[in-house]
């Protein structure tokens, strides 16, 4: 997605400036990974989530070498060695993304143990998803829950195993996590928390997941959705400086002249990136860098506004409690709405919203601006339209 985006910028802003070759190990163009869930659930087809296909690239004069793996890079000679031959370059962009993390428990290589990362994973799941068949999804984060929902929509009996004590613990607090769990269960998805996987049992293929507490969950497939790891081995082998990923500066330059990187495969100021918004920012910055326009990547306060399997939720900033932090909490159990705002020294620093995300963007803006919200405390939850003193007169203060 990052590659597609940066090429879009480049071919629009400087159409004839570069002769471009695009390698993709996947045998297809660029598609929106975020939309794999509806493909899994059957609501969309692959064709509907393609953003830049071979034709699109052809029209822009981009040479596509899809399905071809890059084997090595010679940064001195400025040559890329691929499965079907070399290409020399003036500028090289690495957008190698990430790979799903497979928990290395016994049995993780058994057939039937799948990741959920790309269209091929999705197709494998679809072909395994027969009504009445059983799936175990390891990982109760966003990806895992999307996988679970898709498989459930295809008629499978689904159990989500989550290592932590509530779902989506990086985006949600325990209370919102509990609401989300209930909503999963209402959809017929079993959720087991504090579930540490001991092994995946099976003779020739995965047959059950065994937990450390001894519980055994029989299954036909296991989907690993416990996280991603940046893919930077190619860069590292080429001698490009890497930490937890490829190290870049604010112009997306690696430490090797002429080599750039962006997306999930980079590390900037110690941070990794997994969401689409910073990735698009990086694409813009890199296109500007290559066309000589001054720009710099500035990481933004990350907010997650998601619809997870039909449940609206929003999470931004730092929502951990503690000394000096104050909370505004709204609970409407019958409407299944939960909102929690965290304030520090009169400023909004974090927010979690479950169920009704109206006004969430405004809250996100307040967090980013870091301005004092003391005078708005009573009405923050209700969004921007409930602010200010317009229409509030003395008779609003007392009968």
């Amino acid at each position: 997605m990052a590659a597609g985006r940066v090429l879009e910028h480049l071919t629009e802003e400087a159409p004839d400036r570069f002769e471009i070759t695009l390698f993709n190990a996947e045998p297809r163009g660029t598609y929106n990974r975020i939309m794999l869930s509806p493909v899994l659930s059957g609501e969309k087809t692959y064709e509907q989530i393609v953003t830049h296909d071979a034709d699109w690239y052809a029209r822009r004069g981009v040479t596509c070498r899809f399905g071809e793996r890059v084997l090595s890079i010679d940064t001195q000679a400025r040559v890329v060695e691929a499965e079907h031959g070399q290409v020399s370059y003036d500028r090289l962009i690495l957008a190698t993304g990430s790979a799903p993390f497979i928990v290395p428990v016994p049995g993780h290589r058994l057939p039937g143990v799948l990741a959920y990362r790309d269209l091929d994973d999705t197709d494998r799941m679809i072909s395994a998803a027969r009504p009445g068949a059983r799936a175990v999804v390891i990982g109760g984060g966003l990806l895992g829950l999307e996988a679970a929902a898709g498989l459930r929509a295809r008629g499978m009996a689904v159990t989500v195993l989550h290592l932590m004590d509530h779902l989506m613990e990086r985006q949600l607090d325990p209370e919102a996590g509990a609401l989300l769990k209930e909503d999963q269960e209402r959809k017929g998805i079993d959720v087991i928390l504090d579930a540490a996987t001991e092994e995946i049992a099976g003779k020739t293929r995965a047959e059950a997941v065994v937990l450390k507490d001894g519980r055994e969950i029989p299954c036909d497939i296991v989907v690993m959705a416990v996280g991603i790891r940046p893919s930077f081995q190619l860069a590292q082998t080429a001698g490009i400086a890497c930490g937890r990923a490829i190290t870049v500066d604010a112009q997306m330059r690696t430490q090797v002249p002429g080599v750039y990187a962006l997306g999930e495969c980079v590390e900037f100021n110690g941070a990794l990136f997994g969401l689409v918004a910073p990735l698009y920012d990086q694409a813009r910055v890199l296109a500007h860098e290559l066309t000589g326009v001054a720009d710099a990547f500035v990481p933004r306060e990350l907010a997650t506004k998601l619809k997870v399997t039909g449940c609206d939720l929003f999470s931004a900033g730092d929502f951990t409690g503690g000394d000096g932090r104050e909370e505004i909490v709204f609970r409407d159990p019958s409407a299944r709405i939960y909102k929690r705002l965290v304030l520090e020294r009169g400023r909004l620093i974090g927010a979690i919203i479950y169920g009704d995300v109206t006004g969430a963007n405004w809250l996100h803006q307040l967090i980013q601006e870091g301005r004092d919200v003391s005078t708005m405390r009573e009405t923050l939850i209700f969004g921007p339209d409930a602010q200010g003193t317009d229409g509030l007169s003395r008779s609003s203060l007392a009968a």
Partner: protein
Amino acid sequence: MVQRKNGAKEEGDDADKSDDPECRVMDGAPLPALADDAEPRVTVKSTCAYCGVGCGVLLTPDGKGGLEVRGDPDHPANRGRLCSKGSALGETVGLAHRLLAPVVNGRATGWDDALQLVADRFRETIAEHGPDAVALYVSGQLLTEDYYVANKLAKGFMGTANIDTNSRLCMASTVAGQRRAFGTDTVPQTYEDLEEADLIVLVGSNMAWCHPVLYQRVLAARAARRTKIVVVDPRRTASCDGADLRLALEPGSDVALFNRLLADLYEGGALDATFLRHTEGFDETLAQAMNDDISVTGLAEEDVQAFVRLWRDNEKVVTVFSQGVNQSSAGSDKVNAILNCHLATGRIGKPGCGPLSVTGQPNAMGGREVGGLANMLACHLDLENADHRAAVRDFWGCDRVPEAPGLKAVDMFRAVGDGRIKALWVIHTNPAVSMPDADAVREAIRGCDFVVVSDVTAATDTARLADVLLPATAWGEKSGTVTNSDRTISRQRAVLPAPGLTRPDWAQLAEVGRRMGFKNAFDYASEAEIFREYAALSGIAGRFGKDFDISGLAGLDRAGYDALPPVRWPVSATRTGGRFFADGQFYHADGKARLVPVAWRPPVAKVGPRYPFRLNTGRIRDQWHTMTRTALSPRLAAHLAEPFLEIHPEDAADLGIGLADLCVLDSPQGRAILRARITDDVLRGQVFAPMHWTGETAPAARIDAVVAPVVDPVSGQPESKASVVKVSRMQAAWYGFAVSARNVTPTGDYWARAVTKAGHRVEMAGYAAPPNWETAAREMFGLAQAEVSILEDRAAGSARLAFREAGRLVAVLFVSPGPVAVMRDYLVQMPEVPDLTLLSGRAPADRPDPGVVVCACFDVGMNTILRAIESDGLVSVDEIGKALQAGTNCGSCRPELAALLTRVQTQTEQTPVRPTSPNLTQPKEAAE
């Protein structure tokens, strides 16, 4: 379930066999439609239940227990007009709060038990401790016939003059002043004088709010003949709007002002030497007047001179005076200072010319005529006069009547408190709220051996203290006569069936009389029979030369009584109606009037470092007395839904009292908590609070708990408008506002509740917040099971809760560390308020907040009016009326509409560009 029976009520002394006494006394259920509601709708003429204007009303029962109310175009008092309170009478006839069966020691019973107990206890107490160990405390809301029987029972048969009335709190100083000046308690003028006058002086009268229909007559006269209006009042009231001259004198300094007027008129040669021949006491009076120092009024000399000039140049002057004059330790002297000026100029009893006292109660005048006060006998006959006593004794057929006055209200409750009075019967009044030093009075009643309360509801501060509760028929159900402020006797007629076991007061009193052994004296079959006896007794008074003579009505048969049109007394063989005293004939023994030398003296309580504020009390436009009736009407509650304290902006700033903060008032007598209304309507050093709120509606705001029990030495009337207090900001930890579909049991150190169209609204505040708001709210609303949505900010101390039952919104509570800032006038429309926006406390853009109700008749809010003025460019009260209907019915709100116009015009002049966000700390509505 309580419902009105459409048939005749069941008479009889059978005990009520209900197993659940409570169900007869209180029931929150609405009236069901009756099956037989197809009977023809009949309209009946009657008289309004409220103030002393005595407006005629046309009542049309809807057959379902409800009542349509219109002004009677034929009644001379109002000619079809009604004020907001009168217009809303139909909203107050429900039975939800009615007392429907006698209650003895908390248990419902029948009349036989209850009245036998009352008769026995009074008889035993008299036998054991003497007649003065019993007392009746009655009310200007009694009909004349009820009043007559009460007075006869006390003075003729119980043998005590200990019958006093809440008129003592209202009119006693006028009674005393008129008797001193005229030798009789007689209002010389008629309402028509308001139309005939060239100058109207309002003294201590907020006529625009307290006697709105008279004020509308004044405004109409002014429009027609450019009548000049002077308002003498320390406070800027709605009546000051458009006055030619406003004299904001120091509280209690009226005597000095009218003494100066008398002296200047004398020096200017404006006195009437011919008329003065009909008077005594001029020289001493003038000398005293010239001795007074006008500076105590604090008025500017040019204003005083302007006042004198207006008086001198306008022969036709009517001085209207009310509670600002009467409720004073110098009340009688104030009345005489005014009467002195009218007598010395001969400006009395002539068209458009004379003093006009206006009374606060529908039948205060009837009570005075009957003689139902401790220092009167009957029909203007004198207790101290042996011939009068003998005549009355013979007429009533009793052994003796007391020779000395009984205890006046304040002394009466002192005697209740120290045990001298051991049996007390309170009828249609609420002394535990309305008496000065009200907490002490409440404790006195609580401690009394035997307390009987007759009322239409058990939910009053006084009724809650009763040993015996007697259920009375209410306005609309009872029949009799009332006398208004200009001596017009009008019929109140029954149009609704008496509910439950209720009975008229005269019937209760007469039955107790019979059971005490006086069968013949109280053998009344109807109120018409009582009226005939009363009219006959007035004929005896007439033969003694008394002016109150309605013997011309003594021959009325039932049909004649029922058909009696409004008639102004006297009605005798020699005279009917008219004005008094223009002929120089007065009722002292020598036939002359008295000018009474009076000297200014300050209010008894002195402000000082400890109690630096002077507390004024009074009425508001849409409530009446202790609200037992008006509080039932949602539209009346919407005008001012909470007790408040008017305080000057600079005083508020000095005390750190902000917009809508709560204030604590402390006096040597007690404490009250009220909402601050920061306004320069009051002068610095003065504060004003309404008198209406009670233990039922706002238990921390019983204003008479802080009023000192100081009285006028002549009239015995309490000084209700000049106590001294300390004011401080309530250090509340939390403020709350709730709206509920059902009744609420509020929490907090302060609360005030009012009805809404669909339920109740409550303001609250407390020194310490409950540990858990959900628990507290569930208790408050009685909603143990309802679903709740909660917004909580524990660190800030705020919370918002909404409760639903079966998906339907039933209650909402807002809690804040400061005054709760939500759109109340929008939220009280709950449950119509859209659920989603509810807890934000804000109206959505497509449903703008109407603002606090200004026009109660058409339910038009302040914001609606302001928006219309601004967007449609309205420039007059009449244009507002055309656009929104506001002010086009009763007219009570017209002064407020004019003030809103002025505000918009002023803002436009001062700030051509409207600020987009008016700062809440600027009291934009401070002058409302």
